[in-house]
């Protein structure tokens, strides 16, 4: 089922969407392309939990600068790890990972999100970028390497 790795190194993140404050997908990439629909459904549904978590944390979250929300929406097949960026832009980074890859530690996920976040900032710093979508080869490469490479 799903994106269980059959051979080779287990894929770390399977789907990495970046979601705006309005819950609009700014950017979405996933490795097994055929499952993209399923990922989108899953990530979209997981936003319920993200919203719930953010609202429950409220201001404290902003103060602590703790951007990582942790495992929020495990399913039978995947884990959805949302990372919330709660500064002014309120952009959410989400990562869907394969649960069989338990070798993935929290700090590694932190690091990946950090990279993703930096890449996002780079893209947004471009005065010519379209804030409705991210189309940057740099980000693409970075995300793809994250999805394929073993952490």
């Amino acid at each position, binding site marked *: 089922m799903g994106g269980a790795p059959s051979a080779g190194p287990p894929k770390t993140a399977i789907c990495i969407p970046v979601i705006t404050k309005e819950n609009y997908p700014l950017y979405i990439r996933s490795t097994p392309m055929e499952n993209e629909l399923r990922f989108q459904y899953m990530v*979209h549904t997981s936003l319920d939990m993200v919203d719930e978590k953010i609202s429950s944390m409220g201001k404290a979250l902003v103060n602590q600068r703790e951007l990582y929300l942790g495992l929020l929406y495990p399913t039978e097949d995947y884990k959805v790890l949302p990372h919330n960026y709660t500064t002014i832009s309120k952009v959410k980074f989400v990562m869907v990972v394969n649960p069989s890859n338990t070798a993935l530690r929290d700090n590694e996920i932190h690091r990946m999100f950090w990279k993703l976040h930096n890449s996002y900032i780079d893209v947004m710093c471009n005065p010519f970028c379209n804030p409705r979508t991210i189309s940057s080869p740099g980000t693409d490469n970075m995300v793809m390497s994250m999805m394929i490479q073993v952490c």
Partner: protein
Amino acid sequence: MIHLESNFVQFKEELLPKEGNKALLTFPFLHIYWTECCDTEVYKATVKDDLTKWQNVLKAHSSVDWLIVIVENDAKKKNKTNILPRTSIVDKIRNDFCNKQSDRCVVLSDPLKDSSRTQESWNAFLTKLRTLLLMSFTKNLGKFEDDMRTLREKRTEPGWSFCEYFMVQEELAFVFEMLQQFEDALVQYDELDALFSQYVVNFGAGDGANWLTFFCQPVKSWNGLILRKPIDMEKRESIQRREATLLDLRSYLFSRQCTLLLFLQRPWEVAQRALELLHNCVQELKLLEVSVPPGALDCWVFLSCLEVLQRIEGCCDRAQIDSNIAHTVGLWSYATEKLKSLGYLCGLVSEKGPNSEDLNRTVDLLAGLGAERPETANTAQSPYKKLKEALSSVEAFEKHYLDLSHATIEMYTSIGRIRSAKFVGKDLAEFYMRKKAPQKAEIYLQGALKNYLAEGWALPITHTRKQLAECQKHLGQIENYLQTSSLLASDHHLTEEERKHFCQEILDFASQPSDNPGHKIVLPMQSFAQLRDLHFDPSNAVVHVGGVLCIEITMYSQMPVPVHVEQIVVNVHFSIEKNSYRKTAEWLTKHKTSNGIVNFPPETAPFPVSQNSLPALELYEMFERSPSDNSLNTTGIICRNVHMLLRRQESSSSLEMPSGVALEEGAHVLRCSPVTLEPGANQITFRTQAKEPGTYTLRQLCASVGSVWFVLPHIYPIVQYDVYSQEPQLHVEPLADSLLAGIPQKVKFTVTTGHYTIKNGDSLQLSNAEAMLILCQAESRAMVYSNTREQSSDAALRIQSSDKVTSISLPVAPAYHVIEFELEVLSLPSAPALGGESDMLGMAESHRKHKDKQKTGHCMVTTDHKVSIDCPWSIYSTVIALTFSVPFRTTHALLSSGTRKYVQVCVQNLSELDFQLSDSYLVDTSDSTGLQLVPLNTQSQQPIYSKQSVFFVWELKWTEEPPPSLHCRFSVGFSPASEEQLSISLKPYTYEFKVENFFTLYNVKAEIFPPSGMEYCRTGSLCSLEVLITRLSDLLEVDKDEALTESDEHFSTKLMYEVVDNSSNWAVCGKSCGVISMPVAARATHRVHMEVMPLFAGYLPLPDVRLFKYLPHHSAHSSQLDADSWIENDSLSVDKHGDDQPDSSSLKSRGSVHSACSSEHKGLPMPRLQALPAGQVFNSSSGTQVLVIPSQDDHVLEVSVT
């Protein structure tokens, strides 16, 4: 607080723990030896031996936890009174056995009596017992834990068994549980859980442990979690026997965790952990590649979910459950999902019901459940019963599935997890679709789609829309289906085939013969095609009545195949604007898009207007000006898309609803048909002939395919075109900045035909102005332009002139064209007017103008000519004024040399042009005989350059007595220097003037002589000035005035002389003026001597000598006047006003000499002074100089700088 329960068991050697004991619960923590012996003999005989034996056994088992209790009875004691206290049994025992641990021997005195002593001994005993028991417990527990850890460290060794270790650690957990340390107990299970999970993960990574293979046996039983018993002994034993499967182990572990969590009052953690466990188990089985019959796991998960939920419900009240839905809803959702997949697996969802294969599978699944457990056998709603029932029939499944789904959706909705609710709803919709109940499915699909649309998730939108399309097709909602199909056909997330399919669906429907011919299906256009841009031709989107307007639009077809469209229609709204200024050509150049192209913003296709992303404000500056004087009335900022921003939010989400599209039926439409829209951009051109003047606004765009109409309800931004009607107009303007009089000048005629068509024979009738000629040239041509300044033709212009009227026949031109032609006009110099003014030319009005302008500088004199023109389109005449400027300014002067006279004429060119002057004449108009004007000008041709002057001189000669005044006319031919040859002869430029009193009457001669005996004048020394005034003629007409006195036929006149030195070179000593009586006869001479002193050295000009006519007052008082009093007469200045030649020196002298003007004589009759006209006095010594040398003792050189 520790709660320790202990059992008292009779000592048996077999009960003592052997080496490697793993049991803690049954562990003998404290051994107690009870004796009643009080007799030394008895002690020695039996008790001592027995005790020794007991102690040896304990030692052999290395047990150091023991206690000896001696029960004393007073009654017995009394019998042995002789016994010494030091040899008491207690002492003996202490001596024998407790050599160092005296506290291990306790005496219990009279345990059955109620005395203080008894009480004391009991207390001491119990304290001791508790202390020792706890000591032992602590020691043994610590040892157990150490052993356990040692065992765990050996887990890498071959032959290590997880089950064995499990039992050991669980023993510890039991102990903690027994001690009511549930938290610690839970930690033990959690450690086991984590250890096991780690092994599974390692196994998955290829690092397998042997023992794990036990757990990899195929799953044969899937009867779910059992949480109703504190300890599931059955499963525990299977673990002990190392026969447990992975599910057994996990189930057992979780049931223990669940029990402990419930003890800890943490039911919600149970729910959360349950979900994790279920996911985890599924994953672990997958990872370990355990063979699982299809559906078995679904059964297990379903049962487990319900079991957990029921267990939690069992220990919480309703309110608690309701407020903690967030924790449990995941399990509900999971159970729903599993039941659904079971239903699909067992053929319970298919239309025809399960087939035999499905039934077999169902039987197998039910078999794996085993028999229902006794503890739930009496519960009506047990998970087991539910599952069994649900799988028993199609109807039962439906009931259970719907119950679960609805409950889940309700719960999700109640806690605000709308997305999750919609997702479950979508599953439900799928189910309904399978059950052929599309009417029930639709609402769920719509709900989900709305949710996805609001947040712009492209793939779910496409997928849900596809499902919705199917649903709508089944429901027969044709419009909705077609609309969804059009959206899908334009959806790039679908494959080409799918898109073609949906496109074909629309085309198929459109081509069906409709039973109701007039019926239209109106769909929104966005999904079908998009309006990209619009281009007007003419590009300013303004056309005159009857003109042709082209509108070219670019439609971007979203369809995957070419679509044949019967017609494309633009509905146009017509409005008549009162402000006709908007229709004029001037307005057009200022407004409108520069190139006539209107771009439409691309549709933000899958992303509708969500609450948070309203369109950007479109703000514009607004100025409202007063119509009369164009002054600013109000200014502000207006928002042009208020209607977008302030619309109700709900309506924005009804994107899928075709009901919002209304076809506007307008009288004005632009049509284009038929068109085939290729995928991608298509150019479509509309042509229209403008009819009524006004503003036309493009409102709607419709494309019809059969009975399907795709409508773009609003064209935004607003696109308009204007139709105008224009009155015919005539403009006449000079080609140059200003027209010059006297030479041919070009004037441009512009006829704007407007709505009038110039027919053959139409002409402009110009009523001729008197002094302006219209020069007809044979080759003049008229150009005809269209309104957009494109030249359409040119034609020769026929001009016919009569003496009153010039008729210009216009070339034939259609309406809304412009005819342009040029004419040459010549302003004749107007009739010369006489006057004392030296330079006067033109009409009376121009004269005034000229005078005004002269103050500011050299401006040309202008002449206005009014021409009235009769136009063929109007019964009224158009009056046009043309202003011509005279290029020259002329002045004249009379020059004298003794009695010889000269007339000088100065012509100044004020224009920018260079001219050639020729044939200058000066004639005496009064035609006096004996008067001759001899020209001294050598050249007959003379150029006069721009801003320069030319002088002409004539000598005046006469043979008879000259007339007192002379009327002259100066005329000079002129032509522009640049032009080679003019077709017509130009009138010469004339200038008339009058010269009066030009005959010289007096000669004034002044001479300065050095003092006697000196050769030169010296500064500071008085010199003599001799003025000689000589009459040159006899009595003439001009002498006949008041000053003339006659005595004895000798005439004399009174003159006043005045010596003025303006340059302060001379100091006049004594009287500087005086009145003399001059005989009026030729050669009459008057000599005046004066003393003057030179103030400077050098060649000094002589002081001026002036002559005035001294006119007596009319009355007889003249004799009373003394010689000096007249000087202070003001009338001197009054009389001078008629003086043409400004005599600055005389004015100045008045100021300097007569500064002491007093008013005491005012009112008295005074003689008057009249300057002699310049022509009558000739100063023969003007210009002469006298050499003055400095005085000898003058060492100082004065330099005055002024």
